[in-house]
């Protein structure tokens, strides 16, 4: 039954891939140090879960998760328009904390810390994705479409403007581009994909609560983007695979049971440090952010 375990890991890779390539769009390609990605993921998961529990069909919940997250992406982009670098990073991080606090305290809507259990399995055109293999196919197709769309965006004239903004925003503005609008689009699109990743997560795990969307969930996604290399989609894919699978071999190392938990975490952290020190520009990093 090893295949069930592998299918599970592949589903996680698929969800993380959508999350990471969309973060790559805002961080790597547009140069926006966006630490609010997990908040969009949370918004998508909650919208999707609440609608699904209300009995609405999968495609509707799924799309609305993306659109809802995109709406918040635009809001965040508009409000942080003037911020750059560290300040933008901190403001978006604060946004993550605020969304977390809302999901925890707005108990009337989200049931707060009790979470939302029993999210139904998705069904499309009368077919229910009840077993993990069919769910994997669904995730794979969505991840592939997301990847193709984001690749398309980065290679389009719009994508080149985004890269120009990253490299020199002032010069881009002088050339007559509305950089504010462009940045908002980038963040909005990025948020859309984070939202649909959140929707897939909610459908897959069937249970969500606020603790699934905290700083400790942001760290692996950010690590994927950095280790993959900024503005490299190929690197992002490889890094997603590496980072999702990284904890798995550690499960098979025979530590004594008294230290098993901390020992695995320490090795995980050390491997992360090692990669960061050896490849500070990531696997395929083309650019640097300052």
């Amino acid at each position, binding site marked *: 039954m090893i295949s069930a375990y592998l299918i599970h890991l592949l589903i996680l890779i698929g969800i993380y891939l959508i999350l990471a390539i969309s973060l790559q769009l805002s961080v790597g390609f547009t140069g926006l140090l966006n630490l609010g990605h997990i908040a969009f993921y949370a918004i998508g998961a909650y919208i999707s879960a609440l609608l699904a529990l209300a009995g609405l069909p999968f495609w509707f919940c799924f799309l609305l998760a993306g659109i809802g997250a995109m709406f918040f992406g635009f809001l965040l982009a508009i409000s942080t328009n003037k911020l750059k670098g560290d300040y933008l990073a901190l403001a978006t991080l604060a946004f993550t904390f605020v969304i977390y606090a809302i999901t925890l305290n707005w108990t009337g809507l989200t049931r707060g810390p*009790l979470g939302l259990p029993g999210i139904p399995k998705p069904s499309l055109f009368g077919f229910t994705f009840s077993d993990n293999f069919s769910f994997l196919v669904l995730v794979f197709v969505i991840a592939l479409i997301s990847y193709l769309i984001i690749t398309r965006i980065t290679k389009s004239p719009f994508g080149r403007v985004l890269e120009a903004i990253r490299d020199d925003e002032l010069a881009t503005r002088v050339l007559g581009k509305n950089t504010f609008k462009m940045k908002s689009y980038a963040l909005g699109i990025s948020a859309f994909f984070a939202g649909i990743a959140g929707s897939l997560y909610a459908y897959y*795990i069937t249970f969500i*609560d606020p603790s699934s969307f905290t700083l400790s969930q942001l760290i692996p996604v950010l690590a994927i983007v950095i280790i993959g290399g900024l503005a490299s989609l190929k690197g992002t894919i490889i890094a997603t695979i590496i980072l999702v699978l990284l904890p798995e071999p550690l499960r098979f190392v025979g530590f004594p049971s008294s230290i098993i938990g901390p020992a695995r975490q320490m090795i995980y952290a050390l491997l992360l440090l090692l*990669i960061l020190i050896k490849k500070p520009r990531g696997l395929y990093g083309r650019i640097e952010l300052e």
Partner: protein
Amino acid sequence: MSKTLQIIIGIIIIAIIVALVFVFGTGKTTEGLVKIGVLAPLTGEASQWGVPPKEGIELALELIKNRVDNKKVEVIYEDTQCDPAKGVSAVQKLINIDEVDAIIGAVCSSVTLAIAPIVEKSEVPLISPASTSPKISDAGDYVFRVVPSDALRGEVFADYIKNDVGLNKVAILYINNEGGAGNKDSFKKRFEELGGKIVAIESYAQGTKDVKTQLMKIKNQNIQAIVIVSYPADSVIILKQAQELGLSLPLYFQTEALEDPFVLEAAGESANGVIYILQADPSGREVEKFENMFEEKFNRAPALYAAEGFDAFNLIIKAIKECKAETDLSSCIKDELYTIKNYQGVSGTITFDGKGDVLKPMAIKKIIENGKKKVLMIK
């Protein structure tokens, strides 16, 4: 691609291959081997109540000398960090790679709820040593627990405070996480049904170390007592700060946290006079023996949920002993667990109901002084 990178990727790939070979190599020879998986938060904020059940299991495993009947018992520990997604990864690995016969876990209700559909589908019985969410009652046939649901605890405590003590106006202070909110809800519902009045409800976030302002808000109200739902670490903080602020209201803790020796040691005198509720422990030789053996192995008293871990493990072992000729061990364990009646465990007398929930008598205890406790009532 640089050399270091190739090496890193290489190591990971090799590790995976080795792991797979290892699994395929040994996975087949399950004859004469019983595997039990353990899921608990061994790191992260929840580790304070994830490590004790693991220690209880380690002790239980040692006591049966890794064997049941003629079979060797292997225990595989996985860390969930109280994260549902990590819990799902871990349970997939336990079920599909290790092919465990039964699972003990998870500790956090969020993880237990996330993995319940998976164990249900794979037909692997699971006993949670610490998840108290009322939702778990209906999580499935294969899902058991040796701690009472929040619903039960809240009801019994509300009955006690309203009817036995005769208080009508109380305030609630609770930890704003899943356990805290669940307990608060069940207490509030029952207390109001009985005609009591909840004057104020205050909460604090997990990890908070300052509840002074919350305590002041409560102190200002016209109330007779404070009902507190807390975990070990914050119980100490609440007792300490209540003492420092000179709060003279009676404190009722709707949590077994006060049973934790660390809490009593840290809180010292500030815990005197506190009343709390927990599952009645069958005082007696077995419990004493457990405590002594635990101290001998770990050099300290068993913390909260260590006894539950110990009992969950022994229940599974007991079920396995009954399943002599069965081919499908997992579902036989499940069936045997449903027949458990009045099992004298070290965490209380255990009987499972039709939903896999434990029916345990509850005890109301009071701390007299110097950490000495007195049982006021068994309900």
